[in-house]
């Protein structure tokens, strides 16, 4: 049901944990639906993401999507990170079953939520998430192209 890449990230998730003095923290999802993702960012004075960690309550693809999303934004400028799409996460994972696409959406949103938190704390404005609000329910998300 899952690609080898998904299973590999599930078996050996990258960047699991917390950052005590994080510059930005984002949490999306809820326990009722069975998935919660929390992302911690450490960002330097040049707006480069120097460290990223995640905590996830969820299924195999939720854990793999979180792991992959953190890999994709680590070492990147915040402007690049904010552009991370769920499709990029899916592509990097070699695909996700249709019923699991919402996991990649959660990963995208968790990154955006953490960047928004950083913007709020640092008084910056990050283009694209000026008025960021995570969608109420990503479980309805559907993409015929996938």
């Amino acid at each position, binding site marked *: 049901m899952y690609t080898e890449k998904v299973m590999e990230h599930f*078996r050996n998730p990258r960047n699991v944990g*917390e950052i005590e003095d994080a510059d930005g923290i984002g*949490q999306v999802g809820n326990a009722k639906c069975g998935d919660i993702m929390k992302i911690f960012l450490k960002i330097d004075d040049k707006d480069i993401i120097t460290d990223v960690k995640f905590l996830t309550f969820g299924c195999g693809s939720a854990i793999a999507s979180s792991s992959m999303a953190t890999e994709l934004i680590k070492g990147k400028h915040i402007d690049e990170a904010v552009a991370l799409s769920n499709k990029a996460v899916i592509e990097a994972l070699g695909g996700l079953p249709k019923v699991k696409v919402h996991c990649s959406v959660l990963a995208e949103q968790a990154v955006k939520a953490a960047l928004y938190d950083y913007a709020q704390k640092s008084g910056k404005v990050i283009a694209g998430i000026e008025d960021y609000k995570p969608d109420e329910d990503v479980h309805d998300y559907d993409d015929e192209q996938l």
Partner: protein
Amino acid sequence: MMKQVYLDNAATTMVHKEVIETMDAYYGDLYGNPSSIYDFGQTAKKAINSARETIASVINAKADEIYFTGGGSESDNWAIKGVMAANRKKGNHIITSKIEHHAVLHTCEYLAKNGYEVTYLNVDSDGLISLSELEEAIRENTVLITIMFANNEIGTIQPIKEIGDIAKRHGALFHTDAVQAFGHVPIDVKEMNIDLLSSSAHKIHGPKGVGMLYIRKGIKIDNLIHGGAQESKKRAGTENVPGICGYSKAAEMAMDSMNERMSYVSGLRDRFLKKIPEAIENVRLNGHPTKRLPGNVNFSFEFIEGESLLLYLDMEGISASSGSACTSGALDPSHVLMAIGLPHEIAHGSLRLSLSEFTTEEDVDYTIEKLIGVVHRLRLMSPLYIRRK
């Protein structure tokens, strides 16, 4: 090779080699059609009639009250649709419970869309229905009460004899989905006042795709499968002779071993029930502590989700099951876990281990050891657990 521990016997079971040998004969040399009048066909006919005797004896029924079907879901569909259609003059009301198998629930929902009335009984936190609620739900137009013998997810065994007595007293028919109970715990359709009972072969180390419906003599029921005159003109289609003979062999073996097996398997079950809460914090037993199937273990592990638990266990060679939404692609966790009142997040973290006579004490201890590690690993990844610290 990595150790393999199969703990999903409520899903399906390993077919006994004696069953395969029995079936081989009817796939091979004895391939005749039981409806043919020549001796070769009649050999097959005799085999299915002898199977009917054997299967009937498991539940203290008569052979002519056993009708072979294509499995448990067909039996449930037939029992409910057939009885409701044949007794339309009496009424259109069905009573069932919220924790039935989908073969019963979706059949009732289908009938409800077509003008029938359905009452869904609640269950308590252990998964038991209330007999007084059942009695109060019975009306003048109640035709059928359909309550499962034992639940497939949480293993709770219902007070079947008491339900049968209530049905009889009020003139309603009583059907029970006994797919998880048949051959695993004693069933006596006469003593328990059961009018119809569904069973499936592959839950008792028999083949997939064959089951039966017990229909007490004199019960009015319409056909579900129309066609030829097989099964006393009640269920058309050339009989699955190898399947039926394999089913019979499995039932015979289940009967012979039942007492010994019940005590062995429930001993292993109780080892899980005792050791898991000792070894892991924040766990909840789902289902009744004692009124449960010998082979059923079901726990919820707080702060983690069931699918990831299953995948990590699979990596250790352990096959199990969960009521988490993510294992089915649905949004909500299992309707059974919701009905016993579990909050969503606890229901998402459920694990069902279903045992068989092939499970060993070593399997149990290996599973508990691996479970401790896997639960810990997932909790260290969980924002719900970390926040709590």
